[in-house]
């Protein structure tokens, strides 16, 4: 579903991604771990072109994101993104947050959008919060709404950029629970995370990134119990 070939990304003279290569299959759940500054988030943001690609190829479902003629808005409707700081729209109620893009981009009717939105809120356990505003919700609830908002566009792929890093510890579980269910439903997911428990339990594959490249990849069991690369060992020693 995703093919990344020799992906480079520079900010001015600062090269953040130095040649990333990977393949991610449909329904696969990939966790990206690594020290801060290793380029994890930048890599993720290149997958929906929130960052322009400096060099190399990113092909999602046959569409090459490097192609200047590509309709980026159309790609983005297929690729959902969940942010560290939720980024809900504070001037809209929870249900309106979910209805906006389906109505404006997919052009579905208001009633249809509301119905779909309510179904999704039900799924993340927040149907009773539909008419409230984001500021009235806890961090964990906000992030669950943000996940539902992305799902409202019925994406084929979901990107998670440290979705639990801004949450109080006791709120992390409810968000991971939603993500876990999503993974079990067969969603293709790329998750940048510091939650090693989640990576271990839910992911099919783990990428360890450092210094702008994928230093090591493998199934979670192998990465966490028997890392081959010295950098992976050092990193895991520090955090586990």
């Amino acid at each position, binding site marked *: 579903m995703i093919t990344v070939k020799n992906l480079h990304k520079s900010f001015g003279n600062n090269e953040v991604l130095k040649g990333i290569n990977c393949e991610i299959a449909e329904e696969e759940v990939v966790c990206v771990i690594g020290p801060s500054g290793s380029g994890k988030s930048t890599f993720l943001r290149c997958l929906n072109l929130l960052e322009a690609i400096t060099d190399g190829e990113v092909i999602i479902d046959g569409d090459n994101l490097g192609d200047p003629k590509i309709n980026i*808005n159309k790609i983005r*409707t297929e690729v959902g993104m969940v942010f560290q700081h939720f980024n809900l*729209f504070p001037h809209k109620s929870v249900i309106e947050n979910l209805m*906006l893009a389906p109505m*404006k*981009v997919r052009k579905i009717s208001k009633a249809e959008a509301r119905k779909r939105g309510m179904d999704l809120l039900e799924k993340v356990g927040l149907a009773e919060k539909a008419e409230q*505003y984001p500021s*009235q919700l806890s961090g964990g609830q906000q992030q669950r709404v943000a996940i539902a908002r992305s799902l409202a566009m019925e994406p084929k792929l979901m990107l998670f950029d440290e979705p639990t890093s801004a949450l109080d510890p006791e709120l992390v579980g409810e968000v991971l629970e939603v993500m876990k269910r999503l993974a079990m439903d067969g969603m293709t997911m790329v998750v940048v995370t510091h939650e090693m428990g989640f990576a271990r339990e839910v992911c099919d594959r783990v990428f360890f990134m450092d210094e702008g490249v994928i230093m090591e990849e493998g199934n979670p069991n192998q990465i966490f119990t028997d890392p081959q690369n010295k950098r992976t060992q050092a990193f895991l020693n520090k955090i586990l």
Partner: protein
Amino acid sequence: MLERLERFNWASVIDFLPNLGTGLYYTLLISVVGLLIGFILGGIFGLGRISKNKFFYVVSSVYIEVVRGTPVLVQAIWVFYALPLITGYNMASVAAGIVVISINSGAYIAEIVRGAVQSIDKGQHEAGRSLGLNQSQTMQYIIWPQAFKRMIPPLGNQFIISIKDTSLLSVILVPELMFQGRLIASNHFNAVEIYTTVAVFYLVITLSLSYILRYVERRLDIQ
């Protein structure tokens, strides 16, 4: 002091109310029309200041800097006395007054618009774009409504400044409040009574505006 105040004929002000009323009419006309156009100019050139289009950016910057860098009085006199010599068209003083207030307030409002839009968290823009909304939809549905709310207090400030600036238009013969007051005072030697009344008129306008804006702000603050 008290004795001096008693010498003034405050009741006589009533006789001049129709003239002052005419002045008030022009003051309000120029303020409302000028600020309406200024708001549109501000919206356009404020977005120009954050535009990636170089030409639009440069035009907006030059406009804002020139207007902010010159006094309103100079702008008024230039538009009314100098501009016709360049264009060959004479402008009615009221029209010239509206042009001055529009262009002047537009530049300041542009900076208010720019500041408000830039104050919205970058994540809001990214969230909109990542849902597949295009640039203008993201502006329209996500950035602008949030920015607008933040613009209200500084806009209120600018409205009040511009309303008071209309008094300077008396030098280009706009028959507004200050112009009428000067006319009456110089003919009837009642400077204290008339100028005090004129000041009260301005105060009533600006206080009412503050009140309305506070009401709007509260209404928008539903959360």
